[in-house]
């Protein structure tokens, strides 16, 4: 138990000191994607539903945030709420349809809906089409109490948003509701016969996951000042799957680590250009064939195996 407190303290110190060691915008981007990956993983790990279209929530929330804050001149807080609610509403509509099929069909349906949203974003005037929504201003938060112009100040805001989202997911998983969800994942027929309305639980999990993905997307738009078609594209949907896969599908810390790995790869391997996609593809193949538990899963399995004989 002492070990755990020590690790928690260490993580806290690293998280607080990080912007003085690494480039703060990189850290903020990574935190946004980490939250996004956690949202995706909530659905996969605890409801057994693999969404291949999560970019639609991430990207649409970014657009909602950008539009409300830039064009309608809303305060940032309301912009974030608009992003979250918009993503949740989109999740409600697409989720209600997608959960009508299971397994691999669910993945294909979410992928198809995301593609539809992508095409809509290309055409609708409010997204700015190919140019995207640029020059979203950063405004001070909480009636001007917290400045965000400065990257260091904003880092702590983003860290707080990440922790809030992460805590929400943690609460959700460890609530009675989360337990029912796990029961449905493991044996839907049995949960049904016990009187749980499986579809309603799955839908709520879907909406929640969409909302957290939306929070991540809106926050990312705040950090980088723009929202573009890339955020809603199938590539981003694939990337979030990769993050969860690298870290470990269904583990609670895995997606965070996976997100940092993928974002670092994009930043530090930018010089290889298109080959980043090839590298990502190779990682997919290697993990699926050789290390399906991901970094966190494989490490903890190795740790357990090491400790057993001793």
């Amino acid at each position, binding site marked *: 138990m002492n070990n755990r407190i020590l690790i928690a303290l260490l993580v806290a110190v690293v998280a607080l000191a990080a912007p003085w060691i690494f480039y703060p915008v990189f850290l903020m981007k990574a935190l946004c994607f980490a939250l996004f990956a956690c949202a995706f993983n909530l659905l996969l790990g605890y409801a057994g539903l693999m969404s291949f279209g999560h970019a639609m929530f991430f990207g649409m929330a970014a657009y909602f945030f950008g539009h409300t804050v830039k064009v309608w001149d809303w305060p940032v807080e309301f912009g974030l709420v608009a992003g979250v609610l918009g993503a949740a509403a989109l999740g409600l509509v697409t989720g209600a349809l997608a959960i009508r099929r299971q397994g691999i069909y669910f993945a294909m349906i979410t992928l198809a809906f995301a593609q539809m949203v992508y095409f*809509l974003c290309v055409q609708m005037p409010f997204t700015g089409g190919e140019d995207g929504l640029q020059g979203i201003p950063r405004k001070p938060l909480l009636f001007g109490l917290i400045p965000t112009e400065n990257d260091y100040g904003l880092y702590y805001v983003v860290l707080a948003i990440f922790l809030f989202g992460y805590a929400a997911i943690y609460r959700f998983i460890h609530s009675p509701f989360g337990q029912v969800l796990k029961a449905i994942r493991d044996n839907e027929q049995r949960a049904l016969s016990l009187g749980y309305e499986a579809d309603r639980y799955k839908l709520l999990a879907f909406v929640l996951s969409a909302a957290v993905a939306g929070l991540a997307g809106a926050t990312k738009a705040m950090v980088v000042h723009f929202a573009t078609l890339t955020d809603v594209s199938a590539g981003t949907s694939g990337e979030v799957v990769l993050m969860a896969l690298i870290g470990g599908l269904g583990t609670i810390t895995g997606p965070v680590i996976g997100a940092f790995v993928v974002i670092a790869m994009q930043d530090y391997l930018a010089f290889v250009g298109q*080959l980043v996609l090839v590298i990502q593809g190779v990682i997919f193949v290697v993990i699926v064939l050789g290390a399906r538990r991901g970094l966190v899963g494989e490490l903890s399995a190795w740790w357990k195996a090491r400790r057993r004989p001793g």
Partner: protein
Amino acid sequence: MFDLIGISPQALFGQLLLGLINGAFYAMLSLGLAVIFGMLNVINFTHGAQYMMGAFAAWLLLGLLGIPFWVSLVLAPIIVGAFGVLLERLMLKRLYHLDHLYGFLLTFGLALVIEGSFQWKWGSSGAPYENPIPGGVNLGFMFMPYYRGFVVVAAAVICLATWYGIERTRLGGYLRAATENPTLVRAFGINVPRLITLTYGLGVGLAALAGVLAAPIQQVSALMGTNIVLVVFAVVVIGGMGSIMGSIVTGFGLGLVEGFTKVCYPPASNTVIFVVMALVLLIKPAGLFGQTK
């Protein structure tokens, strides 16, 4: 009648022909997906990349060796199909005992690798492929380029031949039996793993064949398969993967729907197939030709 809805017959039939051509590609690709899924229980995300490889194979055969279109029509699917067999032997076969999702993830990764490499080598802008049958004929109500007519007829023939092969021949019978109950079929002395490999090669070959047919119509480019494969997934959800004929009919039908939308309300033509998918999910979740399971 045409004056009433304010559309010239030229435009209407022209778009319907384009729709029919798109439908031909949807049908061929969803057919391949359905055949592969039936046997391997894997949704082949690489399908779009293999379609692209078919077009590239034809383009390279012409450019490097001067091999004409008609020979490529046979050669390219064999080359790409052989590549598919290799993939199945080396990678896919390790995943059959796992959840379907892993096959999906593996083929997604492979698609990234293949498309990324082609993009890296040849760039993302396309290269033209010379039309093997130039010219066309005026049918009175519309102008019909020979090659486009040929594509529709060829695709229909290929689809029907595949249907016949699977539903009416002995080998097809083994295939269907092995889909139902592989252990039992194995007990009768039939080499099921080889049958699976063959099926994957066949499905990949079909995708490549569609790619060769598409080469003279579209630009040959590394990303020509990325969008079409997503649309084909929607087609597969709409049709359900239970029936071969169902895939063919759904593919052609949705192409026509898309063409018709392009005439009536062009902005919706990109999204209409996804709207149809949403409607089908509402009314008949298992798909038009699918069995509820």
